[in-house]
């Protein structure tokens, strides 16, 4: 069908995306033609004839929602996103895993705003599927080097002093597909094992104190899940006593089943696998526990063949989320370049953005709040002149650590470590407006 356009912009076809012809028009530089032709096209498409040149039919012709009665309250007892937002979904990366019960779904970062991940778009990683666990039958046991091993029901836990904290969670394997070469097209797949929520729960230190843990001998805790995989991870006692939480709520409601309902560990700054879901047991010990997902899987392979065990901390990292790979800029002119930055060691201090592949940098605006081990949103204005550009962002945290380039990471860690790729991300912008995932340094 012929393109239907409105003032200054290409408009989505009825299928809600640009058809092949429209993309071809954009890519062949015919934006200007399309723009100037909007009035005639709009007039032809309008159900009521509007005088050519009079203006935008979206203004001149009152829509149904301005002239009739809308839907009543509580038409949907639990609200849902607009029907026009259905493109933003958690998705699997085809070919990454072979069974969906031991897989990952990625958060659509390309379409999100601010720093909070909507609960339904939080990324998923399950090792043996997810369960919707009855909270009245769920128990947490704290044992090991404690004066009194104790059992807590959810009723018990929710009577304890609660804290609410905002933290990011990032899978250690996030961006892992890109160690060797560019492998996936969009920021959803390069960086989408990343989410950030407000969690409510009790500090782990409160529970350890409550059970009288052995301060002299207790050096590590083991967190264990109640699911089939019985996920276990060792947490050093200084982390456990610092900001680790046992959480039941996320973004103002109870945890979603996919995120460990009714109880999960929140291990700020540490890779996602440490955030044990369906948490059933905390054990205090005097040695690391050597669990499968800290000494066998989730180990970083170095060029000399050594495997780094217990790699936990997610180092400082950032990414531009819009414009980003797989998108097309619709026009020349003003853009708000926006993205996310985070550090597992503390606060993000600064984010710089380059438009020429890292030769020159400008410091972006960081939106408050700037919290420890939490995403921050950055924004920077950009005038696109229609020429080629390479967009990059570079974050610096309050330890002074500067997010590295991919070649700097490779010099030390090679290309096969899978985990902890926090390289600067490049997005290549073509004169056609098309944005592509690229590696530039």
């Amino acid at each position, binding site marked *: 069908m012929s393109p239907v356009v409105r003032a200054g912009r*290409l408009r*989505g076809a009825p299928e809600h995306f*640009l058809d092949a012809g429209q993309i071809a028009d954009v890519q062949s530089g015919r934006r200007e033609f399309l723009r100037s032709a909007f009035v005639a096209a709009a007039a032809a498409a309008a159900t009521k004839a509007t005088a050519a040149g009079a203006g935008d039919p979206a203004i001149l012709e009152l829509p149904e929602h301005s002239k009739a009665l809308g839907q009543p309250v509580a038409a949907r007892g639990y609200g849902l996103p607009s029907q*026009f937002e259905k*493109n933003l979904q958690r*998705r699997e990366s085809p070919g990454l895993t*072979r*069974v*969906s*019960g031991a897989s990952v779904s990625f958060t659509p970062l*390309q379409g999100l705003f601010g720093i909070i991940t909507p609960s339904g778009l939080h990324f998923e990683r399950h090792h*043996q599927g997810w369960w919707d666990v009855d909270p009245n039958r769920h128990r947490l046991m704290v*044992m090991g080097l404690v*004066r*009194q*091993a*104790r*059992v807590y029901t959810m009723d018990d836990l929710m009577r*304890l002093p609660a804290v609410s904290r905002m933290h990011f969670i990032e899978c250690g394997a996030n961006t892992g597909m890109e160690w060797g070469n*560019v492998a996936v*097209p*969009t920021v959803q*797949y390069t960086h989408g094992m990343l989410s950030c929520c407000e969690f409510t729960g009790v500090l782990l230190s409160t529970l350890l104190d*409550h*059970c009288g843990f052995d301060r002299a001998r207790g050096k590590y805790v083991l967190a264990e899940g109640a699911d*089939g995989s*019985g996920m276990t991870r060792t947490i*050093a006692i200084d*982390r456990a006593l610092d900001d680790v939480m046992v959480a039941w709520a996320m973004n103002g409601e109870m945890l979603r089943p996919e995120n460990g309902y009714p109880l999960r560990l929140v291990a700020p700054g540490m890779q996602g696998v440490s955030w044990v879901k369906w948490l*059933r047991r905390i054990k205090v010990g005097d*040695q690391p526990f*050597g669990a*499968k997902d800290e000494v*066998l899987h989730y180990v970083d*392979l170095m060029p*000399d*063949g050594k*495997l*780094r*065990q*217990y*790699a936990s*901390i997610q180092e400082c990292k950032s990414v531009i989320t*819009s414009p980003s790979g*797989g*998108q*097309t800029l*619709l026009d020349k002119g003003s*853009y708000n370049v926006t993205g996310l930055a985070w550090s*597992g060691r503390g606060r993000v201090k600064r984010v*710089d953005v380059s438009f020429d*592949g890292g030769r020159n*940098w400008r410091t972006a605006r960081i939106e408050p709040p700037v919290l420890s081990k939490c995403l921050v949103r950055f924004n920077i204005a950009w005038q696109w002149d229609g020429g080629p550009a390479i967009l990059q962002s570079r974050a610096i945290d309050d330890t002074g650590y*500067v997010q590295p380039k991919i070649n*700097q990471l490779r*010099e030390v860690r090679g290309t096969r470590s899978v985990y902890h790729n926090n390289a600067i991300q490049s997005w290549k912008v073509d004169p056609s407006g098309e944005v*592509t*995932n*690229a590696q530039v*340094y």
Partner: protein
Amino acid sequence: MPRFIDWAPVFTGVVLSLSTPAQAGAPFPGVGRAATPAEIRAWDIDVRPDFKGLPRGSGSVAKGEKVWDTRCASCHGTFGESNEVFTPLVGGTTRADIETGRVAALTRPDVTRTTLMKLASLSTLWDYVNRAMPWDAPKSLTTEEVYAVVAYLLYLGDILPADFVLSDRNIGEVQKLLPNRNGTTREHGLWDVRGKPDVKNTACMRDCETHVTMASVFPDRARGSHGDLAQQNRLVGPVRGNGDTAASTAASRDTSAELAKRNGCLACHGVDKRIVGPAFRDISAKYKGERDVVNQLVAKMKQGGSGVWGSLPMPPQPGLAEADAQSLIRWVLAQ
């Protein structure tokens, strides 16, 4: 009078909490309770690298082979070598590695990493099998079966002889044979929040040293690899997703594919690849065009069964709604 009655329980509560100052949990009276010894035994299943937590017992390689063939081989392959469902468990280790405790092949990019290549603590493998295997029926093996499966895996890896019986008494000696027992490190900056980073960049702002060469770019031929990107981006705003017409046909099949995913079908069946059960494409090729095929297959799916595609049974699916079952089968036959 009513006011006095209201006060009574509060007063009692204060006395109780004051009277038990030494009890653990004193700060939060009424919250939690002591765990019983039986409860602790039931959940305290972890086994540490020094084998603390390992239950007494033993299992032979011969017994392990029997368990393996019925419970493990369908996902991991007869020799633990399969790369079909999960990454391979066995392979890539040598006699020389057993001597040195370092797996030489870990430095070779052309070798797929296997579990035995990475394994440095035998406790981890024992604990892994005990808590999480078999994948679809975790915690269903007996202690003897866990010992036996671990022994059999080490036999497949040429680490133990065929007549070996692994037990809590000799596991420490077997640990000393692991090919990669010396191949791991904790000397890195990512274990501790104050750890020293191993990679350094500087915050140069102007005329920075950079090659600005395109080291790698998303290849044109991979455009359809992640579906239609136009349908993965918002319909409004400064950008649109790049459209890909080749992928749009796949999108139209989404509803039934979603149904298959939601009901767990895709855990065992691939569309074009056998996993535990047959590929949907193979089922379609076999049955398409037969009389009353939809109803026949719906019945088969709901009742489960085995024999047609091998001895591994398909579990019955009684909870599946009739309408969903019908659309699933039509979708399978369309593959």
